[in-house]
C-alpha cells in the first residue's frame, strides 16, 4: 500500500533520539507471526492472531489495548506460561537469536526469570503469602544458580534498597500481608530484577494501585531502565502511562497489532481509527474546555468469532466498503510508524470527529428529554 509520500510531522529523515539516551537499535526480542489459540467448548479462541513485534535493547516498549486484545497472552507466550488449554500454534519468538518456542522445558526454566522476568498486576496473588518476602527474592536467585546463597542474601537487601523499600533489612523478614500494595509491587519488581534480566515484562503493574503510588512505581521503572539498562515491555490499557514511560508503542486489537511507532508520533498523529478513538475517549486532567469524549460504539470482538475483513470494521466510524472484505496488512505509513488500515486518519482532514454521526441511542435520548413524571 502506498504511503509516506506526503510530509508528516515527526516523520523526518533523522532518527528520533529520546531523553538523551544512545540510539537503540539491537533487537533483543523479536516476535514473528505469533499465533496462540485456546480450543474451548464455544470454538477456537484466537487469542494472538499473527503478532509481529520487537523489543530493542534498553528501550521501553508499550503494548496497549483493552481487555481481550491479546496483550497479556502475547506476554505469557513469550515466557511459555500459557494456561491450559492454550498453545502456541505458529510463529517464532527470538530472544537474542534463540527461538523460545523451540526450547525444551529445562531451557525454558532457565530462560524464565533469568533473562526475561515478568511482574503481574496483583502482587498479592503473585507473592507466596506464607513465605517471607526476603526468602522469596532469594529463591528467585538461587533457583537459577547464578548466585550462591550467601551472595543472594546480600543481594536481597541491595535490591530492596534499590526499589526504595525503607528499612530493607527489617522488611525482608516480613510476610507479604505486612506490606502495603505499593510495597508489594516493589518487592515483585525486586524479584524480577534479581537475576539482572535483559527484559522485564510488566503486565498492568499499577492498575491496582492508587495514583500517587502509581507515580512512585512509574518513577522507579524509569530509573531502573536508565540505570540498569533493562528493557521494559509495559502492558497496559492506560495510554497516559505509555506517554509517560515508553519510547515506542504497539497498539493491539483482536489479537493483532493494528498500529506501532515511536511514542511522539503515535500520540501526535495516530493513523489507525482505533488508536485515534482511544486517545480521544479518555479524559485528560489538563483539558481546558469540556469536549465531548469520542466513544467507540459496540463491544470488543468475540475472539472465537472474528468478523471478516478488518477486525475493527464493525465499530469503526470511518469504515469503507473495502474494510469489510479484505483485512489490511500492517504497512508503513510514516518513518518507523506502521498501521493496519485502508483508510488512515490523515486522509480524513483536520476534524474527523465531525464525520461521526450521533448514535441511534443518543437520538432517542434527545427526544425523550420532555418525559418527566408518571406515564399515564
Amino acid at each position, binding site marked *: 500500500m502506498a504511503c509516506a509520500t506526503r510530509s508528516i510531522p515527526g516523520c523526518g529523515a533523522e532518527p528520533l533520539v529520546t531523553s538523551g539516551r544512545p540510539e537503540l537499535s539491537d533487537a533483543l526480542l523479536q516476535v514473528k507471526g505469533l499465533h496462540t489459540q485456546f480450543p474451548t467448548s464455544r470454538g477456537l479462541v484466537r487469542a494472538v492472531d499473527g503478532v509481529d513485534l520487537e523489543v530493542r535493547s534498553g528501550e521501553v516498549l508499550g503494548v496497549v489495548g483493552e481487555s481481550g486484545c491479546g496483550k497479556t497472552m502475547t506476554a505469557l507466550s513469550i515466557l511459555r506460561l500459557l494456561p491450559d488449554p492454550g498453545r502456541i500454534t505458529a510463529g517464532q519468538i527470538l530472544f537474542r537469536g534463540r527461538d523460545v518456542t523451540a526450547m525444551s522445558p529445562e531451557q525454558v526454566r532457565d530462560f524464565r526469570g533469568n533473562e526475561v522476568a515478568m511482574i503481574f498486576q496483583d502482587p498479592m496473588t503473585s507473592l507466596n503469602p506464607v513465605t517471607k518476602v526476603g526468602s522469596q527474592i532469594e529463591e528467585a536467585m538461587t533457583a537459577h544458580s547464578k548466585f550462591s546463597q550467601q551472595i543472594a542474601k546480600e543481594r536481597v537487601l541491595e535490591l530492596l534498597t534499590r526499589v526504595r523499600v525503607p528499612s530493607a533489612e527489617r522488611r525482608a523478614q516480613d510476610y507479604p500481608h505486612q506490606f502495603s500494595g505499593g510495597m508489594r509491587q516493589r518487592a515483585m519488581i525486586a524479584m524480577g530484577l534479581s537475576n539482572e534480566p535483559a527484559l522485564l515484562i510488566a503486565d498492568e503493574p499499577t492498575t491496582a494501585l492508587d495514583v500517587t*503510588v502509581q*507515580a512512585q512505581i512509574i518513577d522507579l521503572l524509569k530509573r531502573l531502565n536508565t540505570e540498569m539498562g533493562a528493557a521494559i515491555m509495559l502492558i497496559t490499557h492506560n495510554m*497516559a502511562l505509555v506517554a509517560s514511560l515508553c519510547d515506542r508503542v504497539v497498539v493491539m486489537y483482536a489479537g493483532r497489532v493494528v498500529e506501532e511507532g515511536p511514542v511522539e508520533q503515535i500520540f501526535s498523529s495516530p493513523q489507525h481509527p482505533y488508536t485515534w478513538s*482511544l486517545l480521544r475517549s479518555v479524559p485528560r486532567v489538563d483539558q481546558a474546555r469540556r469536549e465531548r469524549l469520542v*466513544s467507540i460504539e459496540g*463491544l470488543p470482538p468475540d475472539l472465537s468469532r472474528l468478523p471478516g475483513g478488518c477486525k475493527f470494521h464493525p465499530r469503526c466510524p470511518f469504515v469503507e466498503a473495502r474494510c469489510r472484505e479484505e483485512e489490511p496488512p500492517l504497512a508503513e505509513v510514516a518513518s518507523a510508524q506502521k498501521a493496519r488500515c485502508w483508510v488512515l486518519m490523515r486522509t480524513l482532514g483536520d476534524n474527523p470527529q465531525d464525520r461521526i454521526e450521533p448514535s441511534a441511542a443518543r437520538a432517542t435520548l434527545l427526544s*425523550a428529554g420532555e418525559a418527566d413524571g408518571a406515564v399515564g
Partner: protein
Amino acid sequence: MALSAEASLQVPGVDPETILRVEDVYKHFPLGGLGGDTVRAVDGVSFELKRGETLGLVGESGCGKSTLGRCLIRLLNVNSGRVIFEGRDLAAMGARELRRVRRRMQIIFQDPFASLDPRMTVGEILAEPIDNFKFARGASRRRRIQELLDIVGLNPNFTNRYPHEFSGGQRQRIGIARALALNPSLIVCDEPVSALDVSIQAQIINLLQDLQGSFDLSYVFIAHDLAVVRHLSDRVAVMYLGKIVEIADRQSIYASPQHPYTKALLSSIPIPDPAKERDRAPILIKGEIPSPVNPPSGCRFHTRCPIARAPGICADQEPALIEHAGSGHVAACHFAGEL
C-alpha cells in the same frame, strides 16, 4: 412535587437552589474486639450542592468517599452531623417519610456485576422501584420499563434477559436505568466507570452527561480518577483520610491548587502527551496512606507532606477548610498555596 406535611423537618435558612447540604458529617465503624478502635471513615465533612450541578468527589483508597456517598442518601446512618436534602434533614425523618424521599435520590454503583440481582430479569429489576412506589401499572408500567431501556441505549425488547447475558457496560446502563426509574433529582454516582474497559467508559460518561441535561439531574460523582472527575464536574472536592482538603471549580482546581495533596495528586496523574510528560517532574509524596483507624495528629497529611512543619503547627493543629484563593475555593492547609 408537593411538600409533605412534615414542615417541622424543613431546615430554615437553606436556599431552595441548594439541593444537598452536608454539615459536619461523621461516620465511624467500630472495629470490634476489645480495643474500642473505630475506622474513622468520614471524619467531619461539609459541603453544598446546587440544583443541576455536578460535584466531583475524588480521593484515593481509604479516603472515605464511598462511605460518604452512601451517607448522602442515607443508605448508612451518620454518627453525627446533618445531611439536608431538598431542605429537609434526612436523619430526622421517620421510616415512612424517608421512603418517600428515596424517590428523589438515587445511586449508581461501581461494580456492574454485583449491582444487579443475578436471579432477576432486567424487566423485574427495573420494575422493582416502579412497584415500590406504585408509579405505574399494567401496560403503562411495561411502557415505562421499555422507555427506560431506550433512554440508556439498550434494546427495549430485552426485558426477559438476565444480567449475566449482558456485557459490563450494558449492565452499568441497566443500573443507570434503574436509578432513573423514579425521576430523581439527585444521583450519587459511586465510581460508575472504574470497572469498565476504556472505550466503554467514554460511552457511559457521555450518557451520564446527556442524561443530566435531559432530566435536570444533580450529581455527586465519586471517583479516584481525577481526569474523569474533572471532565464531568462543575466543582471538585478532594478527600484525604475522611476529610475534605480542598474544594474548587474545575478550572481553579487545576490552574491553582492550594493544598499540597491536591498538587501532588495532579502532578501524579499521567497525561497522554509524551512531550508534556517528559518535561514533568511529578511531586512524589513519600510513604503510603495511613490507616483510617489511627489518623495522624493535627493535619492528617503532615506525615507525607513535602512542606509540612512537623514538629510544628502541622502536627499540632488541624487546619480549617477556609477560603484562600477566591470565592468558593477553599482549602484546609496552614500554608496553602506554598508548594
